């Protein structure tokens, strides 16, 4: 008898895996909401609005969810209206007093498990949430309603100016970064976190909107896209090698000030290897060296640090 190949081993393992998945699914179905007892209301939203008619909830009719002309939306023809998101509500509507069985509710304190909440949203919004399941927000049990307000006319997280405030309510470390001396224009309301990050997940590092950091940065800073005749290796690889995109206390979002940043890679004999001590500042009494330290530091001369298209630009000075 021949020895089993890898293909044979896979072929034997896969049925076991598949049957296990089937068993899990059956268990899940058995443990899930009691569909047999759940029933939808008889009149849809007219039933719900008999009680839930406060102004805060009525805001939904000024959102894309409240459009009767959109056949895909919850209020489109033949759709389930309020119960499209909140689930079957007949029993909830017919029960009086404090013993009303809950419908699906949204938010951190809603009582409905986050996975159930999110499933309601994901069932329709697959187009913008393709990578949700493998995303850090999903892994950290973030619910859609932690960020989104579906009953307000303008969802703050979908407005560029108000979006950062929503994101930093969890990403506390970024709140301070907004005010650093060098920053992207988030505090000024001209850019949102989603200008760079895919909050619903992506296949890139740090849920970036583009495949790589460099591809993302050069989608706005197109002048650095290249390819240049003479390239600077880290620029081709990852802008974040030198820059802090969330804000920096150094100019131009740099991690460290030149010449020290540059000297973390360049130590060639001559001026790159020199000691740039404080006595080399103008009037410092040491050997001349101001041109390497003040104004732009190294970029006083190596101004084409992102790449040069000059035939003699190997040192990124032309």
């Amino acid at each position, binding site marked *: 008898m021949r020895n089993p190949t890898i293909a044979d081993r896979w072929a034997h393992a896969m049925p076991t895996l598949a049957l296990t998945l089937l068993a899990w699914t059956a268990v899940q179905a058995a443990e899930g909401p009691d569909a047999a007892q759940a029933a939808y209301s008889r009149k849809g939203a007219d039933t719900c609005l008999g009680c839930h008619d406060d102004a805060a909830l009525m805001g939904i009719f000024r959102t894309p969810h409240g459009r009767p002309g959109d056949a895909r939306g919850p209020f489109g023809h033949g759709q389930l209206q309020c119960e499209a998101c909140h689930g079957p509500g007949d029993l909830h509507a017919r029960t009086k007093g404090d013993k009303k069985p809950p419908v699906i509710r949204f938010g951190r304190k809603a009582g409905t498990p986050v996975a159930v909440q999110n499933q309601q949203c994901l069932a329709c919004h697959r187009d913008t949430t393709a990578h949700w399941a493998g995303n850090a927000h999903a892994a950290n049990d973030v619910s859609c309603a932690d960020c989104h307000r579906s009953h307000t006319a303008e969802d703050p997280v979908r407005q560029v100016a108000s979006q950062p405030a929503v994101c930093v309510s969890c990403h506390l470390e970024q*709140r301070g970064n907004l005010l650093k001396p060098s920053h992207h224009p988030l505090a000024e309301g001209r850019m949102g976190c989603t200008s760079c990050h895919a909050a619903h997940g992506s296949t890139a590092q740090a849920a970036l909107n583009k495949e790589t950091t460099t591809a993302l940065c050069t989608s706005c800073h197109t002048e650095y896209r290249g390819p240049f005749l003479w390239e600077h290796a880290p620029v081709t690889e990852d802008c974040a090698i030198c820059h802090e995109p969330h804000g920096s206390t150094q100019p131009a979002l740099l991690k460290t000030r030149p010449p020290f940043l540059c000297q973390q890679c360049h130590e*060639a004999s001559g001026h790159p290897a020199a000691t740039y001590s404080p006595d080399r500042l103008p009037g410092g009494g040491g050997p001349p060296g101001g041109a390497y330290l003040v104004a732009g530091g190294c970029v006083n001369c190596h101004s084409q640090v992102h790449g040069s298209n000059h035939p003699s630009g190997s040192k990124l000075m032309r």
Partner: protein
Amino acid sequence: MSSRTLLGITIAALLAAAAAQADEAAPPDTSNWKCESCPFAKGYVAEATLGVIDPRQANATYGRYTGLDRSHLDADVDARGNWRDDSGRYAEYRLDDLGLDSRTGRVTYGQDGKFAVSLSYSGLPHRVYDTTVTPYTSAGSPTLPTGWVAAGATAGMTDLAASLARVDVGTIRKTAGLDVRGVLGAGFTVFGSVTHETKRGNDIVGMPFLVQSAQVAAALDYQTDTVEAGLAWTGHGASARLAFSDSKFKDAWAAMGIQNPFLPLVPSATRGVLALPPDNDARGVNLIASSALPANSSASLSLSYTELRQDAALLPSSTLPGATVPGAFDGKVNLAHYAATLGSRPLNGLSLHGRIAYDQRTDDSTPLTIAQVITDEAPGATLTTPRYNYDRLRLDGGADYRLRKWLSVGIGGDRLNTDRTMQVAKRTEDGRSWVRLRLAPLESLSITLKGGAAHRDASGIDLSLLPPNENPLMSIFYLSNRDRDFFEADAAWTPTETVSVGLKSFLANDDYRRSTLGLLSGHERRIDGTLGWTPSDHLSFYADGGYQKRDTLQDGAFSAAAAIWQALIRDQYSNLGVGGRYAVKRWDFAVDYSHALSTGNSTVGTIGTLGSFPELRTRYDSATFSVGYALSTALSVRLRYAYQNYASDDWALDNIGPATVPNLLSLAAPASAYNVNLLALSFTYRFGERPAAKD
């Protein structure tokens, strides 16, 4: 049992599982669901704001990104509105900051569930300096005044003081766009967009002439035109999206000739030419697909391919007589990205997620071998243009399991293998693993603790790829062996319905364990907190703050021996914010205060005799008070006062005049500072009616 039989069983079981997953209760008969009480939006609703803004003592730094960079009255003009009819047709517009360079606008016409067409515009001013000075005239082709006295050092430029004129440094980015989206039915949507973006202004450019340099406010005139089109499909539990894009960048200035203000070291080098960013083109195609799987699982994939092209004509290799163009450059880089993700919650309390991504950069540009002329003056080595390629494989994943209602444990990790060409380390392998505990000792309190370690190993070291004269002991920090340990903790506590508290901290230690020169270690600490109190729907308060500290240590040497000098850099940053809002009847009050302070201390020198640079310091304080009053249901007025103070000490900029450094003719860019009082008064009028609703 044969492999084919087993495969058949596999497919049948998976299909059965999928069918079981898809089995749902039959939908109800909704034909009688009229929703007669639903206040669907229709008609015309709009509001317009008109007012004045008076930013006293504003300057470029204060007004970067907003356009409030001059001390004069600006108009505060905003408008927004929408119209809808019963058939779902609608038109919307939103126009903000029309009186400022930062104006934005979007106008959309469409029909619900059918199509939408939008036109948009945005301006983004980024003024940097408004006090910089230069002897050069014409930012497009910087020229020195007639009779300029060149000298070996700035002190000898006798015409300098008389020739200095103010030049602003900064840019404005303007973007106009057209977006179209159409619903085709059967889950298909077609979309497309066209954007036209310009970026114009001045930027600081250093123009070196061997050991001397001049800073120039060089004109910048960029244009980027991008077209994107695609098709998306959404089905039951699955989606796909295919998009094509083409982005063309054009630079109106292919090159810039700049006069040498110094006595040229080579007699004919009275002028240098700078090559500016060349025109380029990026074309790409991207496919994203996702599908629900059995056992509460979902998978997605992303495939993309981008081609970058650039073939701008090259300049002569110098301005020296007889210099020639060394050939033509046909730049072509291919970027590929293939990735898949998987998320699963197969059992109650268990969640799994994983991702695999492969990125490849292939530079197919033809290398050129060119005899270098350093800064248009001195002959240099003959070098071949290096083309940098990489292959990156990234795997990451994690699992969380809820052991108890109040306790979850998670593990995870990632691995990144990068293979490069033309760089000193042919391969780096990054690995990271972590453990996480989530505790919820009270219903109102959750605590997350996460800690782990990471390492990077570099291999395939080829010292022949180091740049000429590079010290072989130098470790390029992103290609070096590194150990990292990290720990983070965060807590969220809502002790009452009206109070919420958040706390987050992070620490990491980096050790470049085998580096002799270069970055040796780094330490980072962060702690941030927030407090919110909302005693009623009308009243709310908040407070937040944070502190960050980062230390790095690096060594250097003049020769291939032990370290000779050292730099210890310590950056600290803290921020604080408090504020509140109160809205009652016709009144609406808001007050906010923000404070941020950064310091940077660099201690540098020969090992054993380190000296300290003056402290880098910035301080930002901002206080805002606004009050709104509803004069009627349609008309409201708002008064806003803002005070903002910014002060900074920067040894690289303070007291650096055009001639302070003998071999640097600088623009005398100052460290940023301002002290602005802003007063704004605006009236907002609302047109149309809102849907009726109970308060």
